[in-house]
């Protein structure tokens, strides 16, 4: 079905955008390197391919006048999510360009900011490309050519967005999102979101969570009961 395909492609684009955002965060910092720039390039190219594919799939149904009301609503919802995702991607690409020009690599006069982030982000890029691992094959001076390439790609994406706005008319205020407020708190069936506790040392507020406190009291109660029983048994015998 066209809708399922679109949904799958949109998920992949979403993943690629999130990974790209995560990689752009570290430009100019201590983790910046040739490898990072290469990962950025691969991720954004993948994102652009996905964007073109989705646009190709979504535009015909939306321009088709004879589509039913709830089919159309469904496609419009996907369209709104797609265009917002593309806006996020374009904004991140622009920032990557400004940061890349401000912090060129291998220039001793412009040191990188020591932010405390070290270690590679190869896994992040691999996740974006849905590959197992990533091979780095860039030569020296890659970042300078990459910046020109990035500029061209930004213009392309800008044109694509403009084109999309002109061809398809989806009024944003009529679209109802399916997720309500607080929907992110419901655990997703596939990934163990609930098991992810990004513990920030600096944010440990108060003694502990209520669930942990409950578990601790039950455990200590059981322990006390066991000790009491053992003492009684020892006294009796």
């Amino acid at each position, binding site marked *: 079905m066209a809708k399922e395909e679109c949904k799958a492609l949109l998920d992949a684009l979403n993943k690629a955008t*999130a990974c790209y955002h995560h990689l752009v965060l*570290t430009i100019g910092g201590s983790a910046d390197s040739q490898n990072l720039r290469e990962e950025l390039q691969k991720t954004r190219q993948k994102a652009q391919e996905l964007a073109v594919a989705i646009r190709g799939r979504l535009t015909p149904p939306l321009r088709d006048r004879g589509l039913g009301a709830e089919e159309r609503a469904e496609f419009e919802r996907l369209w709104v999510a797609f265009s917002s995702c593309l806006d996020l991607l374009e904004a991140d690409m*622009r920032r990557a360009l400004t940061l890349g020009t401000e912090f060129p690599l291998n220039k001793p006069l412009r040191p990188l900011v020591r932010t405390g982030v070290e*270690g590679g982000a190869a896994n992040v890029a691999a996740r974006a490309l849905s590959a197992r691992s990533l091979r780095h094959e860039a030569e020296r001076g890659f970042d300078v050519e990459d910046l020109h390439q990035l500029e061209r790609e930004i213009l392309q994406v800008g044109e694509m967005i403009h084109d999309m706005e002109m061809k398809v008319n989806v009024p944003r205020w009529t679209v109802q999102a399916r997720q309500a407020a607080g*929907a992110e708190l419901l655990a997703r069936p596939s990934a163990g979101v609930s098991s992810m506790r990004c513990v*920030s040392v*600096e*944010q440990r507020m108060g003694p502990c969570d209520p669930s942990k406190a409950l578990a601790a009291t039950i455990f200590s109660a059981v322990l006390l009961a066991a000790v009491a029983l053992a003492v009684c048994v020892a006294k009796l015998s």
Partner: protein
Amino acid sequence: MAAGPASHGGLRRAQRPHLSKMERMVVSMQDPDQGVKMRSQRLLITVIPHAVTGNDIMEWLIHKYCITEEEALHLGTLLVRHGYLYPLRDPCHLELRLDETPYRFQTPYFWMSTLWPAAELDYAIYLAKKNIRKRGGLFDHEKEHYDQLHRKISHTWDLVVMQAREQLWAAKQRRKGDRLVIACQEQTYWLVNRPPPGVPSVLEQGPERNSCTAGRVQMPTGPFQTKTVDFYRREVECLRKALGRARVKSSVCLEAYLKFSSQRGPHDPIMSGCLPSNPWVTDNDTYWAMNAPSAAVPTRLRVEQWAFSFRELLEDPVGRAHFMDFLSKEFSAENLSFWEACEELRHGGQAQVPALVDAVYQQFLAPGAARWVNIDSRTMERTLVGLGRPHRHVLDDAQLHIYMLMKKDSYPRFLKSDLYKDLLAEAVVPPKTKRRVFPFMRKPRHSSPSPALLPASASREPSGGDGEA
């Protein structure tokens, strides 16, 4: 819109030079030889490098810029408040402490100049991520913002949830230390851009200064725009206009200003106090009554003011009346009457202009008129030609001529005359009210009656509510 600010980024950055200065300072702190000393932060198992203490920062600032400790503390606090450094122990309080509390540098992505203004979609994604991580444990103001955002951008809420989940998954692919640092960085950025209630926001700017430059050049030059011919044409036009503006030498300007201030200093009610007393303070409005435009006896200060310039004399109705008396003694009162008639023409109604011009001509300018004014022949010719098509400015030349005549001739004589000296002697100087010994025995203050009520119905007001029509 997320993409919007990037195109204005160049212009905005130019308008906030303090940010680029701070960024240069931060970059020079990163120098491996001459930068700030770095330590490592040791958590339970992980070790995260690149931590600095407040003391190190202060020492570096003092050493590099040769400033005092107080200034260095102020600079350091500015850096922290704008989010270029963040504290590791107490992240919600952005201030620089001079002990061993560790700080770390913010990544350039989250610098104020790169990512300003903060987009709503990004904030929504951040709050959703925090929601997931803390299982609904947001602060109160964050909960409010969350609800507001949900109302505003509810159409993209699907994307918000999807992106939040995916970004957390992407972060999970990193080592634990990196994950912690990146989370702290993002938190600091949002603390600066959406401060909790009660914390002053560094983003507030005062009213737009240099509004001419703000409106002038609209085309930001960036990597995407080239300078076209139009741009240069506009620049040339602007500079040409700037060349043609009249300029006054500052020495002349300042001398005039000094003279003005010294002359008017004693006359200013705020600088030199007002006699008898300031009505706003003592509720006694004698001061206003005595200085009313049509007061019978002028105060001494007022009479002295007439000596400053001819314009002052003419603008004051009492002064003008006395000047008219003086002129009638000298048999040149028609000059002032002519001048007043011209003023009426200039500022009167459009419909009366032809009639008024005619009347003025008959009375003052026609040969053999009752009150003929003495104007030189060239101006008279020009005026007579212009009278054929009357408009409100036909008599401007004649009026100016008479004005200069009075100013150069009659005015100095007026100031030296006996009439003026008598006025000065008779002018009243009100005594200053004595301060009451018992300050609590002040006059009871009444609130002034509402101007909408007529005075007759003021007595009926307490009884019912039907005083007001």
